[in-house]
Each structure stands twice: as structure tokens, then as C-alpha cells.
């Protein structure tokens, strides 16, 4: 069993969070509020050090890169949101951010998520028979799903069975996503159990 006070505190807080599985209780609430408070304090410190100190105070006031002060002033405009009468001033900062972000994102996303993906959907004609079948299945699935989301015409006649095949492919996607999500959640539980039984109780070996 661990003699590290930090491990003991973490173990007790883990059990406090687990107690919610029985029913809501004050011990759980304490642990929850403690987590929120500690996280807020940690992030405030990190952001202040990384953004305000390292990116503004050091370059502007210590290294004399005065041009960067405009970025700092733009950031300060955000604080005008706190007053209803002056909140319109903060929109200048938001507008700048939205425009800069759009400039970053739109061309890159179009390339990576639309053009390259569309290219990847077109079936390959080389490789093993399985990769060719797989490529055709992907293309059929994509087309059927696109037709399922095509609402300009009523889904009847040819469109009806095609859109139903689209639903089938969507279900496959959701099923895979659900399976992975379960795996993720169980892994979080495994992680806590490994901590409790390994780091705290010493029942299992630490790898």
C-alpha cells in the first residue's frame, strides 16, 4: 500500500466520485466542487503565464516588440462584454478573431475534408480484390447517404430504396462509433481501477 499522501488523497477523492453510483451525496458533491475549483485555478494560472506573461509582457515590455501591444489591446476589448452598455466594443475583437480564423480554416478544411476525401472515395482499380470491393462499397455508401440527405425531392420511386441503403450505411457508422465510445468509457474505469489497485493498494504491479 502506498505511503504517498498525494496518492491517498487522489484515491479517497476517486472513491468519493464513485459514491455517486450508489446515490447523490455530500461527499460526492464536495469532490466534484473541489475538482471544478482546482481546475479553474490551474487553468487561470497556466493561461496567465503562457499567454499574458510569455506572449505579451515579455516580448512587449522586456524585448521592446511594441507592435505586439495591438494584440494585447484587442484582447482587452473582450472585457467590455461584462457591461451591457459597452459590450458592443468587444465585437471588434470577435470580428477580428472570426476573420482570422476563417482565413486559416476555410481553404485548408476545403482541401483536407472535401477535395482529398472526395478523391479518396473514388474506387481504386489496383490492389487486392478486397481493397477494390472495399473501395466500391465506400463509394456506394457515400452516394446512398448523400441521397438520403437530399431533401429537394420526395423519397419515392428509385430514391426510396437508395436512401434506405443510405440509412443502413449510416447505422453501420453509428454502430462503430457507439462501440468505440463504450471502449473509451470502460477504459476510463480501467484507468481508475489500475490506479486504485496499483498505485494505491499495490495489489497489481505498476507497469
Amino acid at each position, binding site marked *: 500500500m502506498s505511503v504517498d499522501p498525494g496518492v491517498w488523497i487522489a484515491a479517497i477523492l476517486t472513491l468519493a466520485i464513485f459514491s455517486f453510483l450508489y446515490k447523490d451525496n455530500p461527499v460526492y458533491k464536495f469532490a466534484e466542487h473541489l475538482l471544478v475549483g482546482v481546475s479553474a485555478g490551474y487553468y487561470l494560472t497556466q493561461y496567465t503565464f503562457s499567454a499574458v506573461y510569455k506572449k505579451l509582457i515579455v516580448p512587449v515590455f522586456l524585448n521592446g516588440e511594441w507592435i505586439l501591444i495591438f494584440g494585447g489591446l484587442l484582447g482587452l476589448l473582450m472585457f467590455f462584454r461584462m457591461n451591457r452598455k459597452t459590450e458592443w466594443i468587444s465585437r471588434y475583437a470577435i470580428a477580428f478573431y472570426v476573420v482570422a480564423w476563417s482565413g486559416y480554416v476555410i481553404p485548408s478544411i476545403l482541401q483536407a475534408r472535401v477535395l482529398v476525401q472526395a478523391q479518396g472515395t473514388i474506387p481504386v482499380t489496383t490492389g487486392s480484390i478486397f481493397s477494390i470491393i472495399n473501395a466500391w462499397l465506400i463509394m456506394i455508401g457515400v452516394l446512398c447517404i448523400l441521397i438520403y440527405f437530399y431533401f429537394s425531392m420526395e423519397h419515392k420511386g428509385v430514391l426510396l430504396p437508395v436512401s434506405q441503403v443510405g440509412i443502413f450505411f449510416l447505422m453501420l457508422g453509428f454502430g462503430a462509433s457507439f462501440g468505440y465510445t463504450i471502449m473509451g468509457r*470502460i477504459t476510463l474505469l480501467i484507468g481508475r481501477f489500475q490506479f486504485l489497485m496499483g498505485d494505491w493498494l499495490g495489489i497489481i504491479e505498476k*507497469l
Partner: protein
Amino acid sequence: MRELDTSAPIAKRTIWTRLMAVDRRIIFLAVALSVALPLIYPIGLPVKTANESRAYFKEMDQLNAGDVIMFSFDYEPDTMAELDPMSLTTWRHAFRKDLKIIALTMYAGGTGVAERIMRQVAGEYGKVYGEDYIFLGYNPDWSGTMLRLGESIKATYPTDQYGTPSESFPILQHVDRYGHIKLLVSVSASALSEYWAIWAGGKYGQRMISGNTAVQAVLIYPYFQTDQISGFLGGLKGAAEYESLVGIKGEGTRGMDAQSTAHALMVLFILLGNVGYVMNRRRRTQ
């Protein structure tokens, strides 16, 4: 499963109605046991490797001693259980091959995670900070950081995490942008792997691999299929596969027994719930 309907007449309760109304605390206890017991008494279920994990391994394994890789810890303590095994094995694999690592994080909460893993693995292999690896730390604005790293690492990070000028480190003497880095590795709990692929990969042609949480893995497959991400690990299973390829027994491999039993238990619960539902409906129609 819904709560037990205590207002229902006792006489109407059958095994099928009881199956539909198992107390959730019994289910929680069963899941806890299905996870705890295999950790204490490992079953040793085989780990079959998938294409994406083999591709991840191959990208790492084909690098030569002295090559520099960039490793981004794009996660925080909430997903350590899934992603720590990937990070640990990647660092062990890299140091075993004498690769040099430039580490950073795109999350404010990732610095503590990164420092713990670097300290542990560097200690195991006797690696020296500044020569074999460096930690640049957290930089606000991940989008700007990813783009600017393509122009200059030293301009983006004038100092390392601890305030020492970046240009003073031997590892950064001949390395200052993506073009000088053989491989980018992002172990991520969010869409950051995608953005690395879009900006570092799409704009600068940087080859990259990623490790992802299970929830995120489904979204990474299209990038893997189009070779925008050259290999990836999905969740704890991906970590276990990579461990088996590298030949290291880690938390991923050990966790897979518990993962499998918990999944089997859930399938059993789903089956029982459905059997109860069908039988109840049949009784009512009769």
C-alpha cells in the same frame, strides 16, 4: 434498463419483467467486478493487430538513429487512461531506436502529463534533456502554433518550458521547421490530430501519425484512408496492439483483458434486456 416498478402487482412479476427492471446498482457492481478481476487475475487474451496500428509502428520503426521527431501531448489528465499507454510506448520505441524528440503540448493541462512521461521514459533509457529530447511546453493558440512551426520552431518557442533559450539546445541546432523533422506524432483526445494533418500535413507536407481516444478514432479513419495520417492507434485496443508490435507489456495490454470482459458483460446485458422485452410483449399479446 428502467427502474423496478414497485407499484405493479406482485403477482404479475415474472422472470421476464425482472429482467427488464434490474437495479442499476447491480449492473454497476457487475461492471466493476468484470473490470477488477481480470486486472488481478490476467486472462492473457491474444491481441490481434489492425492495419492502422501496424502502419503506426512501421512509420516509427523505419526511422534511423539520430532522426528527429516531434511529439505533441494533445491531451489532459481526463484521458490519461487511454492515451498514456500510447505515449509511453511511443517514447520507449523512439529511445530504443535512439531517435531525438521535440515535445510540446497544445493543451494548458498537458504540461504535467508530458513531464511525467518524459521523466519516466528518459530515466529508463538514460537520455539527456536538451540533447536527446526537449520540452517546448504549451503555447496559446494551437492553430497559429501549428502553422508557425512550419516557418520556425525557435521563433514560435523562443524558450523551452523552463525559460531556457531554445537556440541554446543541441537538439535544435540543425532543426527549425517541419522540413527538418522526420515524423510528427500527435497523441490526442480531440480533433487536434485532424488539424495537425490539415495544417502541418496539408500545408507543409509533414508526414504524421496519431494516437487517439476511442471516441475520436472513428473520425480519423478517413484521414488514414487518404494517407493524410499515415498510421494511427484507436483507444486502448490500439495501444495494446502497438505494445505487442514493439514487444513491450504495458497498461494497454493489461487493460485489454478487462476491456474484453466488460464488453462481454454488456453484450450479455443487452441480450438479457432484449429477451425480457420480447417475452414480455409475447405474454401481453397472448
